């Protein structure tokens, strides 16, 4: 793995070449945690704050609970390293899937920083710290906007950052390149997706109470691992063109090979005196049908009263393309049933499959964040989601044949967020 090799080599080089800075090596440990009890009131549809996590309905103490630990290591003058492990309710559990950060950084001047290893993306405003509930307003980052993006929230690669004070403001430009494998589960089966040639450019500017970020990202889909998808594609590819010409087209849409995804996002934060207002919009275009092509966004406003901040917000995500209409196969009159029936069943299953990844939802929330002490904040939040028919792509339907039904889901969450 790139990040392991990079770190090992960098540490060896630094220790050999910078004996004079040996007494400068310094390690600092820190951590964060979110303990959350939440309840959803629709047992037909499971909720997870991230696409990578276990979907559940009803009461859950694990759905949004997170424990993170970090080591900041000063290696030498201009060199440092950061490791971060975040334990959360990932559907696929392995150390590699819990390792968020593991990089070496070199700062040749005060304006430039180069990092290599496992890095965090800064695609969205919260993308660099989506699990640190203490640092933001809500119990979880806005679901419509962040749920899918989280699966490529970290990657193995390099990034280069340039930062400069401009008048009273501060500008950061970053270019990142790498790859990652999203490790998920689909219907109790391991589901891995490779993101190759993941390239992201971001520009962040802060001035007094304002922070704004613009970003662009592109990635190729590489290999995938999902046994049921292999079987489904094999079945589609075995059907003669003359009987069901659309089968090959559907197969290509479900196969990762040759497909890519592009993102563009803009975010704005205004934090002045008692007001905290934040909004982001994002647009994605994906050739692979499993990854949504959506327009998503949110706006949230909070008002501080003493140690509490009361907030409300609206979020939305909508698929940008019409659902593919699956045509019926056309059989010659003499076709035996043992051939035609399975193909017809495959066509029916395909119509459900092209709908099930579709995203169309909006939600409102109200909540309060109360600063209990210097390092602990308590939160209570109520969300109401309106999920349209054929729009539950960010959720888990207990019965996939319910894909044409809409859902209205309420989520009540009580949370304690802390840093230590």
């Amino acid at each position, binding site marked *: 793995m790139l990040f392991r090799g990079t770190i090992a080599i960098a540490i060896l080089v630094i220790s050999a070449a910078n004996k004079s800075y040996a007494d400068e090596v310094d390690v*600092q440990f*820190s951590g*964060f945690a979110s303990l959350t009890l939440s309840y959803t009131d629709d047992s037909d549809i499971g909720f997870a704050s991230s696409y990578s996590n276990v979907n559940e309905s009803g009461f859950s103490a694990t759905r949004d609970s997170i424990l*993170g630990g*970090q080591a*900041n290591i000063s290696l030498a*003058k201009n060199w440092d390293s*950061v490791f*971060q492990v975040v334990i959360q309710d990932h559907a696929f559990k392995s150390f590699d899937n819990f390792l968020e*950060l593991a*990089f070496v950084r070199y*700062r040749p*001047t*005060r304006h430039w920083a180069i990092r290599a290893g496992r890095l*965090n993306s*800064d695609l969205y405003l919260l993308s*660099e*710290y989506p*699990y*640190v509930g*203490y*640092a*933001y307003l809500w119990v979880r980052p806005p679901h419509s906007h962040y749920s899918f993006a989280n699966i490529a929230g970290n990657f193995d690669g390099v990034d280069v950052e340039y*930062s400069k*004070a401009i008048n*009273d403001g*501060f500008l950061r430009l970053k270019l990142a390149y790498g790859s990652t494998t999203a490790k998920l589960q689909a219907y109790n089966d391991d589901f891995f997706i490779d993101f190759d040639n993941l390239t992201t450019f971001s520009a962040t500017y802060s001035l*007094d109470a304002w922070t704004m970020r613009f970003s662009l990202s592109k990635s190729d889909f590489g290999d995938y691992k999902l046994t049921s998808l292999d079987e489904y594609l094999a079945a589609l590819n075995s059907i003669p063109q003359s009987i069901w010409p659309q089968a090959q087209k559907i197969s290509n849409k479900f196969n990762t090979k040759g497909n890519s995804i592009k993102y563009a996002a803009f975010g704005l934060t205004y*934090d002045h005196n008692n007001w905290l207002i934040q909004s982001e919009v994002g647009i994605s275009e994906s050739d692979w049908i499993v990854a949504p092509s959506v327009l998503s966004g949110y706006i949230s406003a909070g008002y501080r009263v003493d*140690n509490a901040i009361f907030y409300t917000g609206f979020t939305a995500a909508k698929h940008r393309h019409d659902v593919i209409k699956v045509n019926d196969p056309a059989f010659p009159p003499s076709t035996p049933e043992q051939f035609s029936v399975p193909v017809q069943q495959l066509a029916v299953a395909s119509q459900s499959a092209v709908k099930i990844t579709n995203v169309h939802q909006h939600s409102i929330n109200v909540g309060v964040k109360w*600063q209990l002490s*210097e*390092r602990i904040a308590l939160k209570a939040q109520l969300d109401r989601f309106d999920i349209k028919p054929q729009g539950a792509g960010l959720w888990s339907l207990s019965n996939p044949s319910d894909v044409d039904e809409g859902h209205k889901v309420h989520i009540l969450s009580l949370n304690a967020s802390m*840093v230590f």
Partner: protein
Amino acid sequence: MMSPRNLFITALLPLCLLFMSFYAKSTEFVVVVNKSNAINALSKREIIDIYMGRYLTFPDGETSKPLDLPAQSTLKNDFYLQLVNKNEQKINAYWARLLFSGRAKPPTPSTSVEDAINKIAASQFAIGYIPLSQVTDEVKVVYTFD
């Protein structure tokens, strides 16, 4: 004739608030560094750059190690209000974002003004803020708040 209650609300309360506001702003801070530091003066912007984790060095490229006064102290809260118009609660959330995004570490806490002065006197990279009234010969003043 004005009742005692109305007199308090209309006349005395604003005076009290004015006095409290004057008192709250009365801490005059200076920013100080080690006497061997080549820097002789910093602008407010350059102090913001260091204390908000934008740059990890002084303008001349030397490493900077900022110090904070004790958490939840009036002095720390006042300093950040004067520096960036943010109270300590906002500053804590800001530093949680920077620390756990892997970008920078927050200033090192000191236990008192005297502790801060001792640490600055002992390290050529240190920078701190202290009340003007407590400046000693052990440190060099590089900025005075208006």
